């Protein structure tokens, strides 16, 4: 029977909101949805026709090797679905690829649109500067969906509950423990005004000048992932999916292109101002105000005016 299999993303007892996007694309494609979820008291809502609780612990379920065995059981019992949907997250990215490889299914990740007429999935290339229309053939297609792209299509469904036993956990990859982030000197999620710098600042040597500007503007300095990766700023200052989600009154982004992992962490700011020398930088699509200029010149001019 034709159905969409949704693999729920859960973490430490929480049913992630992004699962709504998975439900949304299943609805958009007009598929009956079966959602797999591990054992636990998750608030999954009524977003699938059937919710199958797999009687294994969360850490077992979130392991792509175990998931492969669980999926094998599901396919044997229900037949192959048309579509297998993951969230585009640390879990979904890992497991979508592994599932596709294990079963020889086609895969498209980071799907942010679907053209019903043409039957093609829209996928970002070159950090959102170009999109590819992808057609899949030969078997159920595995996709991971970009957070925020399809939730509006999710509808209330029956959510009939079922249970299944999970295969015995593998021993070649096992969960050991969670590791929390280091303590921060400042909490960027509490700031009203963030001055956020990206790879565009060019080098570590530029940091003090931006710190100085932040000080004069009474803003808190934060950054995009590359700035933290290069250790120009400490990890707790990172904005984005693998960093912090912030909602300041003003988010001033300098030299940040606007990759979705960054946007997801700041898009709900009250006012976003972006400075970038590239007129096509995707961040201008999310900003309220934009300036096309060299960030260093803007920085120096602001300092000059503010004194």
């Amino acid at each position, binding site marked *: 029977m034709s159905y969409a299999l949704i693999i729920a993303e859960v973490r430490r007892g929480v049913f992630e909101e992004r699962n709504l996007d998975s439900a949304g694309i299943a609805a958009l494609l007009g598929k009956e949805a079966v959602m797999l979820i591990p054992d636990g008291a998750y608030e999954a809502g009524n977003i699938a026709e059937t919710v199958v609780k797999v009687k294994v612990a969360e850490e077992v379920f979130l392991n792509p090797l175990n998931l492969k065995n669980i999926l094998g059981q599901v396919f044997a019992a229900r037949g192959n679905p048309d579509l297998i949907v993951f969230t585009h997250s640390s879990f979904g990215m890992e497991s979508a690829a592994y599932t596709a490889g294990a079963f020889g299914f086609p895969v498209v990740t980071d799907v942010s649109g679907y053209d019903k007429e043409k039957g093609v999935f829209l996928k970002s290339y070159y950090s*959102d500067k170009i999109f590819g*229309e992808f057609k899949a053939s030969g078997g159920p297609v595995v996709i991971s969906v970009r957070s925020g792209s399809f939730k509006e299509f999710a509808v209330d469904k029956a959510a009939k509950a079922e249970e299944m036993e999970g295969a015995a956990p593998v021993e*070649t990859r096992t969960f050991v423990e969670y590791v929390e982030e280091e303590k921060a000197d400042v909490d960027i999620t509490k700031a009203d005004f963030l001055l956020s710098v990206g790879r565009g600042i060019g080098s570590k040597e530029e940091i003090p000048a931006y710190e100085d500007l932040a000080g004069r503007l009474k803003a808190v300095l934060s950054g995009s992932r590359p700035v933290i990766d290069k250790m120009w700023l400490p990890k707790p200052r*990172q904005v984005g999916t693998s960093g912090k989600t912030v909602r300041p009154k003003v988010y001033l982004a300098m030299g940040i292109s606007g990759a979705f992992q960054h946007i997801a962490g700041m898009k709900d700011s009250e006012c976003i101002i972006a400075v970038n020398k590239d007129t096509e930088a995707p961040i201008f*699509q999310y900003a309220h105000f934009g300036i*096309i200029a060299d960030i260093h010149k803007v920085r120096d001019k602001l300092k000059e005016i503010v004194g």
Partner: protein
Amino acid sequence: MNILVFAKRVAATQEEELRIRDEGAAVDLSKVPFKINDWDNYSVEEAVRIVEKTGGTVTAISIGDAESDEVLRRAIAMGARDGFLVSSGEIFHDPGVRSRLIQNFIRKENIPFDVIFTGVQSEDDQFGCVGGILGACLGLPYSSMVIGIDAVEKDHMIIRRELEGGLQERVKIAVPCVLSIQSGINEPRYVSIMGIRKASKVERKVFQAADYAAPASAGIEVVRWTYPEKKGGATMLTGELDTVCGQLLGILKEKGVFQ
């Protein structure tokens, strides 16, 4: 420990204006500079560091046209012993095709390894798939988002995976395995032009991708390239730098974050 590390040459498009050609058939990259995929740079560095501690070798492998030799030279300059180019003029957008090509290449050429590293994702296509598909095809345990390697033993490794919001998980994974390395795991060493010149003297082997192609049964193809849909967008502040900065400060005052 013998580590195979995959390195892709990608277009550096962050500051470029990209144009679509031939009514959506291709993206014009003729004027765009190319470089090693950022994630692969971290991955080569991590492999070299491990081998410096435990002994063994690092072999860098790239699939691409002749120009991809550039990333192999760079990897050798960083400490890889060998560089293999699986040569093809064709771009394989489907990560499944690339993974199966790699699988066949490793098997047919009998390339020994304990661990395979890829980057978490390619900067250009952002699939994040080649490592995971390859791991499954080879029947090996896999982990992506590897942000730390805490212990390397003969039969297993203790690694840290990066999750959302700054959280990590520690995982025990059996060797041999495939790992996809996340950016920020280390501080990649500086590679000088001199270093690359010296690396050029080390022979790189070239193989023909056509010899390892797998019969395609399931897959994906890109039918058309498009520009992103415009979402309204920002109000642009224009004029002289003085004016623009004045306007910016005006907005800050209006929002009440600056007096």
